[in-house]
């Protein structure tokens, strides 16, 4: 167990290092990103340009620049933005994190519960009309681009029907839980629903096909032969191994979302989370913030992978033995 954790910790460092180097290289390979000219402003004197570039340390060789930036980010923790000069990067990320976590946890609860319900319904009544109906509803959800869906939702809740049905919907933006729990809930309900629609269909399908398969497995047939009720069979035996595929997928998706993967949702609903920070930094080509958000996201992805592997071993004893 200790060896497993240590091993994964080392590989996590490797992954974070590679990602940061790659992001750094890609950034400087892009033409037009030199922050000096953008900061120096329009029609800046060439001398001014040189001086500003020196301020940023951009006249130093690439590896030195990388090392300096990493030092500022991790050691002295005072890395500042290229575009919003003076704004420290790390506080921006820590302030954005609770927003993303609120969005992702809420959406995850909704989609997990809904997909379990739908998946079981479809799997148990397989072949009957309700199976098709449930699957089609789920499929419609995953077929729509999330940014498009979000804009359409806003069109109705903020504009067309704002005067009547949706007058209770607050203006777009995040209300901190500490300010007002009810306001927090109201500001997040539509983002939650929009984000979860994307995943419900997929997870319901995965669960359904896993249930159907598991029901054919030997150990389930054994359980039935032993005389256990259908319900017991389903919950204690079939569901357990069905969950493996479900958990594996969930780990990947959830990890990516916590790290800021829901960026289009955050942008459309004006939630200043890590995803929106990532999106803004990419639009601005603001390298310090890009590096911080990329490393933040990678961290969660890697941790999620490790956790999923652990859970996988726990859920499927066959793998554990290996």
């Amino acid at each position, binding site marked *: 167990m200790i060896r497993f954790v240590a091993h994964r910790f080392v590989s996590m460092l490797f992954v974070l290092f590679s990602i940061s180097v790659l992001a750094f290289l890609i950034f400087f390979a*892009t033409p037009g990103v030199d922050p000096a000219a953008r900061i120096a402003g329009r029609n800046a004197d060439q001398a001014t340009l040189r001086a500003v570039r020196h301020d940023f340390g951009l006249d130093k060789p690439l590896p030195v620049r990388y090392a300096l930036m990493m030092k500022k980010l991790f050691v002295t923790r005072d890395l500042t933005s290229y575009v919003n000069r003076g704004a420290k990067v790390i506080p921006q990320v820590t302030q954005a994190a609770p927003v993303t976590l609120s969005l992702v946890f809420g959406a995850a609860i909704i989609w997990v519960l809904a997909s379990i319900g739908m998946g079981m319904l479809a799997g148990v009544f397989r072949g009957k009309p309700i199976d098709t109906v449930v699957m089609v509803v789920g499929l419609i959800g995953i077929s729509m*681009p999330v940014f498009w869906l979000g804009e359409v939702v806003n069109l109705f809740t903020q504009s067309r029907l704002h005067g009547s049905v949706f007058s209770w919907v607050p203006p777009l933006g995040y209300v901190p839980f500490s300010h007002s729990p009810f306001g927090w809930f109201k500001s997040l309900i539509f983002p939650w629903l929009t984000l979860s629609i994307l995943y419900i269909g997929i997870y319901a399908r995965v669960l359904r*096909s896993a249930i159907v398969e598991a029901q054919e497995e030997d150990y389930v047939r054994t359980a039935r032969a032993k005389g256990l009720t259908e319900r017991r069979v389903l919950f204690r035996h079939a569901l357990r191994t069905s969950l493996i595929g479900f958990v594996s997928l969930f780990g990947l998706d959830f990890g*990516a979302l916590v790290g800021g993967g829901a960026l289009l949702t955050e942008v459309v609903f004006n939630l200043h989370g890590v995803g929106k920070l990532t999106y803004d930094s990419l639009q601005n080509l603001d390298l310090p913030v890009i590096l911080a958000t990329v490393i933040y996201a990678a961290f969660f992805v890697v941790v999620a992978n490790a956790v999923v592997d652990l859970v996988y071993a726990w859920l499927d004893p066959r793998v554990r033995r290996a």
Partner: protein
Amino acid sequence: MSGAIVGEVPAEAGDLAAVAVGPWQLARRRLLRNRVALGMAGLLVVIVVLCLCAPLYADHVAHTDPFRSNVSGTTIVNGKPVPVMKSSTQGLGLGVTPIGPTWDIHHYFLGADEQGRDVAARLLYGGRNSLLIGTSAALITCFLALLVGGVAGFFGGIVDGVLSRILDVVWAFPVYLLAISLSTVLIARGLSFGPIHLTSGSLLLPIAIIGLVYIPYVARPIRGEVLSIRRREFVEAAIGLGASNWRLLWSDVLPNVITTAIVLFPLMLAIDMLTEAALSFLSIGVQEPNASWGTIILDGQDVLYTRPAVALAPGIAIALTVLALNVLGDGIRDALDPRAKLRRTDS
């Protein structure tokens, strides 16, 4: 479930003969009996054919060039010529509104976009690109994921460790940054990888990016399956008999895993089409003058409040195609399930 009992031989006489036939032929027959899946396959064929006929539609039916700006042009509605882009005359007289859907297949069936171009014609051309990108990317993903996942799961140890870490890097990779950077770099000059030459507007770019980025998504489940297959008795037995690793991979592991890949393929196609829409929405996917359903949604954002049809049409097109793909995928999965041999055919 109608209570099939362990080991029951299928009741239909026709299946007795089928037992002597190979599993693929059996799957085909099963698929052909699934009417819903067949219906969806038919829908897909209709969509693909319509999109392939885009040039025919544009030239001979609608008489329009959907890639040329037509801001000052006119068209015929109810026999009378009307401007394609109408300036507002009420109030302060601000704004210019494109013509809305005319429901006349010869003249701006779905209306015009913000450049005065025929949306219906662009939708068909866009479909060609979206389907092409989705299919190619999904093929790349599934093929490479089979390779990577299979090797990682089968050999285990260091190989698995290294491959899994590489997959982690790929999954955590800042895709949007890469896409932005590549699209900017390629404007000034192209990139060459041997015979493949990439320029800024090339469709290979989104195909490659989307295809490569989702490899971990498919490789992980495949790796998991390979891991559990590896431990099964028949594999242990084959190893005991002295079979070489590669032969085992090819003849024993792969056929069992390939069904997973085949089932995941339509799912990946759907995800890839949605990802292409997202990239094009951020202007880093398909570039002008090419159009795709994603770029048309982006165009539609500009006129969302006055002409929602421009954004709705490609969204619905994507939804229908993806729906059809998924139902078909389900049918394929049902048909391919090896344990179906022992099941009653009322499923």
